[in-house]
């Protein structure tokens, strides 16, 4: 059960609260949810099973697992996955810090306007602008997130992670359910719920809806991040891989439903006009959460309790996902001979130092989100390739050894199909980047260019390829290492 709690905490992150409602409302409501369900079955569940199998069998972090499943020559793939996820962690700790800051300010009554604001602006805008321009605050809350997480991971799996994540997940679910129930009861909330649940059937013929659904699933469920691979190392050896992977993927979307009912129900009930609600949904993750929701909740009866609860839920979701990324770094270092406590301190120090640029510049944070967010698709592809190299039928047989639900031929087909899905999604993201920046898409110094992705991925790729032999030799042996297989 502990693995399920840890893995669901890992998957349920801030994206469930601030991204899923926006994207679902924009891309056809129920039609988008149907596309999401298909994406869960084709991308997320099969990949989560791959990750679970790799961690559970190899009993090693990503680098060791890739070595033992894909062969020594391909150990670099595990290194690439680690860098991508840590690349996300370095800015995600800053984002987790923002959530903590908003919770603290809300809990102390600071998110209720108490005076005049300049014309043409709102309380939420002023509050956000003042916060983001204050490096002491942004770095300070980033440090709070890092210190808390270092302390949790430092204390180990049972004494630290399991204990904290159990409390966090229960608290998060209770808060989301209470706030969603409250939102649904508001007069006018039905308009928001219609956006979320009632299908616009014509949207199922829109390729963009499918691309958005697959992207949402790839980012939200944690499939391809390598995080479940690490948690599986600490799970029982005979843990039910198929059942647990299904629980993780479907719970993630189910929690997204409650978060979306909360966000969209509140938005459409409290927004002064439908146009205002549309504007809020179009303002991006941070704009919606830290500006529009702040302004809207402030006008509601009971704002004094709703506001801190909402930001507490966001902070719990953010920090629990941050803990998973942190543990990924720690476990991989432990595989190179570090003691857990030393590894946690090293990862914590790196997380703090390398997060500072994102704490100081929202453009830098956006750049890192862009580069490593799309990089996750490559990690997903590498996971599928590792299983293809290992033998997809052999992997399926091993999954079925421990599973009550026998995985059929569909899984084999999905794994073989994942490279095609990757190619379509990846090409689409590159196409968008070129289309949106026709003159600067090649420029590595532009925040959202193809050039900046190619440069940063290229540097990492060269480094991990150059270090391949070192990584393969130095990462410790696991139960599979001595039983050589093809490619070793």
């Amino acid at each position, binding site marked *: 059960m502990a693995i399920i709690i840890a893995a669901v905490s890992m998957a349920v992150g801030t994206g469930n609260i601030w991204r899923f409602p926006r994207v679902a409302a924009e891309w056809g409501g129920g039609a988008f949810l149907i596309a999401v369900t298909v994406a869960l079955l084709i991308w997320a569940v099969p990949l989560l099973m791959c990750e679970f199998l790799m961690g559970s069998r190899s009993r090693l972090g990503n680098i060791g697992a890739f070595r033992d499943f894909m062969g020594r020559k391909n150990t670099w793939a595990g290194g690439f996955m680690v860098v991508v996820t840590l690349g996300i962690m370095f800015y995600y700790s800053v984002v987790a810090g923002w959530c903590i800051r908003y919770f603290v300010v809300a809990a102390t009554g600071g998110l209720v306007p108490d005076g005049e604001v300049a014309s043409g602006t709102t309380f939420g805008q002023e509050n956000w602008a003042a916060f983001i321009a204050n490096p002491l605050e942004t770095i300070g809350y980033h440090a709070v997130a890092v210190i808390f997480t270092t302390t949790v991971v430092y204390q180990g799996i049972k004494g630290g992670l399991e204990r904290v994540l159990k409390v966090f997940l229960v608290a998060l679910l209770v808060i989301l359910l209470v706030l969603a129930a409250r939102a649904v009861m508001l007069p006018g909330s039905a308009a928001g719920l219609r956006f979320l*649940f009632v299908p616009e059937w014509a949207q199922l013929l829109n390729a963009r809806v499918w691309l958005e659904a697959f992207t949402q699933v790839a980012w939200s469920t944690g499939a391809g991040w390598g995080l479940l691979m690490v948690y599986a190392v600490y799970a029982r050896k005979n843990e039910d891989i198929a059942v647990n992977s299904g629980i993780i993927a479907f719970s993630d979307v189910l929690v997204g439903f409650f978060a979306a009912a909360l966000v969209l129900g509140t938005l459409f009930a409290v927004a002064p006009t439908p146009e205002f609600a549309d504007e809020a949904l179009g303002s991006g993750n941070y704009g919606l959460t830290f500006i529009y929701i702040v302004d809207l909740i402030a006008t509601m009866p009971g704002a004094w309790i709703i506001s801190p609860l909402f930001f507490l839920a966001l902070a719990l979701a953010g920090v629990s996902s941050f803990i998973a990324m942190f543990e990924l770094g720690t476990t991989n270092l432990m595989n190179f001979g570090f003691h857990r406590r030393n590894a946690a301190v090293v990862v914590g120090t790196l997380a703090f130092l390398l997060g500072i640029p994102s704490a100081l510049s929202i453009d830098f944070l956006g750049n890192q989100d862009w580069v490593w967010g799309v990089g996750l698709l490559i990690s997903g592809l590498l996971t599928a390739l590792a299983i293809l190299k290992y033998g997809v039928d052999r992997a399926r047989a091993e999954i079925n050894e421990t599973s009550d639900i026998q995985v059929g031929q569909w899984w084999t087909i999905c794994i073989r199909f994942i490279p095609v899905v990757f190619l379509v999604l990846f090409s689409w993201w590159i196409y968008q980047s070129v289309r949106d920046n026709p003159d600067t898409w090649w420029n590595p110094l532009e925040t959202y260019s193809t050039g900046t992705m190619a440069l940063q991925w290229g540097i990492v790729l060269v480094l991990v390829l150059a270090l391949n032999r070192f990584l393969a030799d130095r990462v410790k042996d696991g139960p599979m290492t001595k039983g050589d297989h093809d490619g070793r």
Partner: protein
Amino acid sequence: MDAELVFWIAFFVGGYSLVVGTLLRIALKNGGSED
């Protein structure tokens, strides 16, 4: 809330809850402690 909206909420939330609930029941049946 009109009938169409109630149906689709029940369809999606109920369907997902059913899947998660069934899988959780299997996982709990096989429960046990970690290594």
